[in-house]
């Protein structure tokens, strides 16, 4: 799986959470790679481990979370093997991150301009006036017209959409090669969400960044990503390119997710498909396939042994964690018109 051309190659990353009641696995053997200029979406419901994955890549997992195993190869070097001091040189410069709640992700005690300048000063050793000039440029770059006014504002004076633009300006300030966006539009209004997605897409294209886009909303994925990883209960269950996702998902969970999207439903009044049951709770031990309890295709084998994430067909780049992947060519009702 480790590919030399990869910008980021995550190998078998596992994170446990150790609580008083014992430890439980948050993510298990997560493997993913991101090439330069590529956007990879990680999709999953709440609690599926998608945010933990992003934090683990950044080395920002804190107690009670513990990285149990795995490698995070960034430009050929293992970030997890570095000391925290060494790793910090890359954070905020080469790998940056934006978060779900932009307003609370900015420090309320400092102006927006100061917080952007801080990154420039830290990583690019810029002087104060240079910082200011560059920060204003960056604000303009993310589509804020009166950038000076924004520069002097505190986060609480700006709207959520505006603060997310500030976060993005901060994230692209050192021309990173990888941007991790953790549910960046979930807290925003739909129109603002569309603008933010467009902005991210534009910046990613222009700067040739690699991007990991984390979301719970599968319908956003075609607008932003080239490839999608579907996560369920701490595992990646499917890894495929966008083009094939909507025509024929391989994993039953992906299919079920697609079918439950109201956006992919045209007939008024017709019932949506649902996934019965609930995802396993944190700490619950499951034997076999993690999805078998809710899978409409589950057979005996699914309950007993756990499938691996493997290529579905010999000459197919898609990976799926299922013993009985849905045939690539079979028709599913989730397909877009």
């Amino acid at each position: 799986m480790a590919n030399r051309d990869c910008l980021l190659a995550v190998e078998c990353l596992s994170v446990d959470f150790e609580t008083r009641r014992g430890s439980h696995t948050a993510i298990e053997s997560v493997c993913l790679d991101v090439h330069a200029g590529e956007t990879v979406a990680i999709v999953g419901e709440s609690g599926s481990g998608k945010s933990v994955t992003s934090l683990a890549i950044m080395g920002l997992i804190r107690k009670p979370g513990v990285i149990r195993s795995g490698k995070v190869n960034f430009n050929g070097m293992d970030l997890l093997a570095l000391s925290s001091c060494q790793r910090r040189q890359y954070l905020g410069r080469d790998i940056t991150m934006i978060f779900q709640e932009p307003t609370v992700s900015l420090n309320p005690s400092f102006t927006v301009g100061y917080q952007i300048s801080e990154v420039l000063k830290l990583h690019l050793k810029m002087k104060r006036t240079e910082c200011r000039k560059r920060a204003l440029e960056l604000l303009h770059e993310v589509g804020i017209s009166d950038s000076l006014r924004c520069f002097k504002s505190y986060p609480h004076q700006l709207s959520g959409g505006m603060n997310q633009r500030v976060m993005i300006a901060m994230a692209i300030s050192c021309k990173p090669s990888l941007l991790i966006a953790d549910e960046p539009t979930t807290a925003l209004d739909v129109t603002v969400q569309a603008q933010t997605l467009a902005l991210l897409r534009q910046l990613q294209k222009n700067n040739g960044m690699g991007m990991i886009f984390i979301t719970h909303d599968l319908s956003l994925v075609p607008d932003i990503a080239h490839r999608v990883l579907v996560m369920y209960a701490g595992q990646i269950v499917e890894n495929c390119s966008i083009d094939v996702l909507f025509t024929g998902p391989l994993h039953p969970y992906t299919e079920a997710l697609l079918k439950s999207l109201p956006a992919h439903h045209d007939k008024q009044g017709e019932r949506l498909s649902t996934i019965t049951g609930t995802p396993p709770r944190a700490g619950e031990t499951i034997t076999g396939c993690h999805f078998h309890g809710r899978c409409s295709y589950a057979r005996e084998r699914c309950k007993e042994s756990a499938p691996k994430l493997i290529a579905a067909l010999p000459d197919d780049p898609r990976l799926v964690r299922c013993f009985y992947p849905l045939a690539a060519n079979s028709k599913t009702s989730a397909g877009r018109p």
Partner: protein
Amino acid sequence: MSNATSVEDVDVLTPWQENWYKLRANKIAIAGLIVLMMLITSAIFAPLIASHAPNEQFIDSLLAPPFWSEGSKAGFVLGTDDLGRDMLSRLLYGARYSLFLGFAIVLISLVTGVAIGALAGMKQGITETVILRLMDIMLAIPAILLAIVIVAILGASLFNAAMAVSIVLLPHFVRITRAAVISEINKDYVLASRLDGTRGWKLLFRTLLPNISAPLIVQATLSFSNAILDIAALGFLGLGAQPPTPEWGTLLSTSREFIETAPWTVTLPGLAILITVLASNLLGDGLRDALDPRIDQ
């Protein structure tokens, strides 16, 4: 939707049971609780435990040191005071004053404070403004000073001191209740309850109070320790219980002059106060952790 029953195996605990389990996991808080229980028990059964009456004088054993020092006398485990009274017995009877008064004071200020605070929070407008200004005024006068003035006017007695301390502690309950009521009253579950037709006192007692009980309970334990400290301080200043009442603060003040010759007469009552206050603060901290939902995350 047959499998909507994924919580089948879960025991149904009431919220209080759950808090108790959380509190039980906190060993230090439980230690505080146990110490407090022991103190309460010994206060209740003081006549059975104590070897002497609290005011019984043994003229032949004035200022006898406690058992670990040289010259200690049998029968006086913790020594005697300047009038030959048994320290242990006096301390045991003294616990009755401190603990009983602590409970009584907290109960009075809790009940009146919650009532006034809830009134301020639910009525708002002019009622609220007047109540808040009044509480501001009370808080602007340092607690002991206010108590001293009240006692000075009403006269020095244990009852007046207790009244004074209740008044001093009142504003905290008022403020906490009002703040909690205001923060809760616009929450969805209260709105939903209103839409279910619950209003007035029913809304306060059935919906609001159970949900704001956590900060009130924590404040009550903290107030309990404050009450004990304040009562002792007033006793120490001669404005609370009057000798020969074996109240701990009064014990301290009467034996102050023997600090050089008989240090135990000073150290022991103070230690008793410290242990009691410490135990209830430990319990209070534990309760705060157990009841504060934010700690869960």
